[in-house]
C-alpha cells in the first residue's frame, strides 16, 4: 500500500472512530435546554409508580432500581445552569409538553424565579389540567416573591379544586412575598453531580451543610469524634 493511501485509510478510520465515540461523549457536549428535556423524557417513565397506599397521603414510590430520578436531577441542574437561556424553552414546554414534562418545567421555573414572567405561571396555576403542574406553578409564583403582589391568592385558593394545590397556595401566602433565596439555585449549580447516590453502607457518609428551619447551620462532619448521627430523610408536609 502506498504511504498516501495508508495515511488516508488511517485518517478515515480515526474519523469513523471519533464519530462512533461522539454519542458516548455526548454528556460533555453542550446541550440545549430542549436536548436536556428530551433526555429527561427518555429516562423518566411516568408509568413506573408503584406501591400506592390505599389511604391518604396516597404515596406512590419509584421502583428501587429505577434511575430515572438521577436523570431528572442532572437535567434540573443543567437547566438551572443555563439560567435565563432555559426560560424560553421551559415556558414552551409548560404550555405544550406532556404532563410529566410540564411538571419538570414548572419545578425548574421556580428555581429560576426572578427571571420568569408571571403570566405563563398564572395561566398554568389556574388552567393546567394536571394538578401537579398547577401545584408547581403555584410554588414558582410564590418563589418569585414580591414580584407577584398582583396575584390574587385568596381568590385562587377559593377556586382551586385540588386540596394539595390549595395547601401550596397557603405556603405561597405564608411567604409574605419573600422570594426563593438565590442560594438555592447557587447550591444546585455548585453541586457535583458525580456525587449522586454515593451514600453507601460501610463507607464514609458524604458530608453536607444545611440550614435548619430555625436558621441554625448544621454540618454533618462536625459530629465526627463527638456523636453518632441518626439521619432521617422525610418527605415533608406536602
Amino acid at each position, binding site marked *: 500500500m502506498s504511504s498516501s493511501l495508508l495515511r488516508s485509510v488511517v485518517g478515515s478510520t480515526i474519523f469513523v472512530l471519533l464519530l462512533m465515540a461522539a454519542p458516548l461523549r455526548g454528556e460533555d457536549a453542550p446541550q440545549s435546554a430542549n436536548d436536556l428535556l428530551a433526555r429527561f423524557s427518555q429516562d423518566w417513565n411516568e408509568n413506573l409508580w408503584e406501591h400506592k397506599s390505599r389511604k391518604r397521603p396516597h404515596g406512590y414510590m419509584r421502583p*428501587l432500581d429505577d434511575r430515572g*430520578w438521577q436523570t431528572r436531577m442532572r437535567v434540573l441542574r443543567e437547566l438551572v445552569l443555563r439560567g435565563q437561556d432555559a426560560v424560553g424553552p421551559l415556558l414552551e414546554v409548560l404550555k405544550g409538553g406532556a404532563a410529566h414534562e410540564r411538571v419538570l418545567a414548572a419545578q425548574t421555573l421556580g428555581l429560576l424565579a426572578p427571571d420568569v414572567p408571571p403570566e405563563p405561571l398564572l395561566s398554568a396555576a389556574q388552567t393546567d389540567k394536571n394538578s401537579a403542574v398547577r401545584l408547581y406553578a403555584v410554588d414558582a409564583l410564590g418563589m418569585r416573591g414580591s414580584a407577584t403582589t398582583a396575584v390574587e391568592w385568596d381568590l385562587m385558593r377559593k377556586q382551586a379544586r385540588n386540596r394539595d394545590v390549595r395547601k401550596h397556595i397557603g405556603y405561597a401566602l405564608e411567604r409574605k412575598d419573600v422570594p426563593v433565596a438565590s442560594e438555592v439555585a447557587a447550591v444546585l449549580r455548585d*453541586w457535583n453531580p458525580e456525587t449522586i*447516590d454515593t451514600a453507601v453502607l460501610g463507607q*464514609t457518609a458524604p458530608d453536607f451543610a444545611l440550614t*435548619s428551619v430555625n436558621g441554625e447551620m448544621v454540618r454533618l462532619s462536625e459530629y465526627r469524634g463527638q456523636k453518632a448521627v441518626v439521619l432521617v430523610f422525610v418527605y415533608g408536609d406536602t
Partner: protein
Amino acid sequence: MRESLESIAQLDAQLLAIDPHEVWSAKMLLKNTGFSTDDLHYPLLMDPSLTVSATYGVAFQMQIHVELSNRPATFIIDKQGVIRYARRALTYNDRPTVRQVIAELNKLN
C-alpha cells in the same frame, strides 16, 4: 417522642431530619399544630436545592399527594463518620421503629 429523643441522646447520638422543601411548609405545619420552631428538639434541616437528598439517593422517588418528594430513609452514621445502617423506604410509611434505631445504635458501641 421526648423519651425516644432522650434514649437517642443517651446513646451519644444526634437525630437530624432532612426535608426537601424551603422553610415555609415546615413553618406552616408547626403553626397549624400549635407549635413554633422553638419546640423542635432536633434540627430539621431544609434541603430545597435537593443536593443532599440526591447525594443520599432519595430525591424524586416518591409521589405524595400530587407532589414529588424524597423517598423516606434512615441512615445511622457512627462517630468515625461511617454509614453503619441504611434503610430506604419501600412505602410512604416504611421506616424503622425507635426501638430498632436504638438497637442499631447499641451495636455501634
